[in-house]
């Protein structure tokens, strides 16, 4: 079998397929369907310093080949996480990564510092791109100076693998990828959701309580793929691609466009076994085409 291993900084992943944050809970909910040891990693739910109730209902709307969500980072905060969730994560035979969120640079650094102390968490994903929270969140991901500030600050206090999750709601994604690289990130992951909305014509109201929300699913794949391609050509650090991956073919598109690894998000809601199926599909493709490792096809469209 082809070698599926990839590396993000010094961290080796069994294969390039990772569960995306906010779409896999803390893993436990998926245990009936996924053996975590089949995956490269799992990025657990967006976590904040303080507990958050999230946004009001309704929080989701279906759209053409996609969905909008306005969850707003509902989570019980880092104290609860450390005490009640972290102990359960240690048993997974895969890399468990925490998605880190904040309203201020201090929030981000404080939270990162706390997670740096958690032995079985080898990496964080710095979410500077959540479109569903009023302050913070996307501001950091759409303003270059703020992005630089928060990444630099976190890099100072967080010693392990730092992945920066970029927002697609920007004019030039390469700018944010370059800033991440310059400030010492080990990788960038993209994309988070596109800011979108939907209207209920019958009631003449927005479908989401927050009016706008994050668009995910196959609808955004072409945009995500384009941004991954652009980012991968702009920086030397690995790019982790996501946005609308529903099967191995989609994942291979991202890898061929330059992604070192991929994340599976919304697809898990519809078919919880998508991520392991993507692993198998990538392996099958490599075997069929006689490639000895997945790294051989990273960025392939730029070469063939």
């Amino acid at each position: 079998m082809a070698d599926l291993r990839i590396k993000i900084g010094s961290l080796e992943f069994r294969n390039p397929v990772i569960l995306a944050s906010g779409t896999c809970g803390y893993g436990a909910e998926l245990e009936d369907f996924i053996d975590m040891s089949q995956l490269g990693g799992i990025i657990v739910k967006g976590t904040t310093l303080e507990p958050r109730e999230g946004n009001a209902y309704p929080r989701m709307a279906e759209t053409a080949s996609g969905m909008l969500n306005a969850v707003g980072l509902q989570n019980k905060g880092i104290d609860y996480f450390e005490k009640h969730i972290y102990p359960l994560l240690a048993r997974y035979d895969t890399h468990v990564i925490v998605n880190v969120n904040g309203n201020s640079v201090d929030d981000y650094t404080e939270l990162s510092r706390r997670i740096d102390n958690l032995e079985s968490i080898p990496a964080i994903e710095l979410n500077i791109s959540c479109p569903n929270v009023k302050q913070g969140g996307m501001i950091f991901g759409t303003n270059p100076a703020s992005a630089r500030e928060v990444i630099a600050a976190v890099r100072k206090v967080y010693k392990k693998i730092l992945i920066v999750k970029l927002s697609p709601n920007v004019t030039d994604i390469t700018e944010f990828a370059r800033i991440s690289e310059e400030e010492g990130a080990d990788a960038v992951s993209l994309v988070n959701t596109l800011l979108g909305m939907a209207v209920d014509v019958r009631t003449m109201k927005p479908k989401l309580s927050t009016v706008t929300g994050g668009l995910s699913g196959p609808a955004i794949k072409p945009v995500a793929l384009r941004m991954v391609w652009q980012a991968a050509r702009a920086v030397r650090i690995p790019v982790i691609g996501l946005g609308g991956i529903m099967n191995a073919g989609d994942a291979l598109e991202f890898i061929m466009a330059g992604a070192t690894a991929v994340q599976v998000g919304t697809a898990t809601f519809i078919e919880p076994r998508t991520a392991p199926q993507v692993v198998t599909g990538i392996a099958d493709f490599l075997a069929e085409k006689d490639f000895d490792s997945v790294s051989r096809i990273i960025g392939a469209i730029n070469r063939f």
Partner: protein
Amino acid sequence: MKKRIEDLVVTGNRRLAESFFVIEATSAGVLPEILPGQFVQALVTESPSTFLRRPLSIHDVDRTSNTISLLVQIAGPGTERLSRLVPGVDKINLLFPLGNSFTLPSKGQRVLLTGGGCGMAPLLYLGRKISESGVEPQFALGFRNRSRILEHNEFRKLGTVHLATEDGSEGHKGFVTDLPVFRENDWDRVYCCGPEPMMKAVAASCRERNIACEVSLENLMACGMGICLCCIVPTNAGNLCSCTDGPVFNINDLKWQTSE
């Protein structure tokens, strides 16, 4: 409870009144344990505008044939596509069993199961389980008018059925809460699943009379497994997921703020 994903064979598809139909889906293997009030997430294939699965209550379970039945109302493209499934030809992919369950009554309790429209779906299996536990359920079912009354022979086999229609064209005139049987004061437990106004009216009346009451909510869902956090219900314990902490809730825990 262990969840599974399975392609079941569609073995029945019966049209009821108006836009309602009952799908029977048979497993090639043995069905897992299923609790009353639990639901499935049905994959709708061949419907371009249906991206997510569709949550549907488990209407009945036949363990001799390993068949689940679903009572569905055509509400949009997803349910419309399901209404055209062809028995013997098509399969239906289900993720199940999902959610918590209704609390079964203790021996000797008097229980009333209230509902209307597709809200009747979970009440049949609940009635069956209650009946199996040795309690005789009674049903209070509400409909817009005579032509919208759904087949309820299976309900009758389990216990007395009381009908209400808004225009009085059959049964009692009014809502289920207007039924004399509902207003009697000696129910130990009331269960309700139906349109939100019905559930609120039932809940209000039960709260007033201190009757234990559980309702089954139909919040919008993306995953049905507790991972997306889209289906939340504000409760006294904070935002809970209606797909894992529900869909059945005790009315005393609910804040009901989401609805107006």
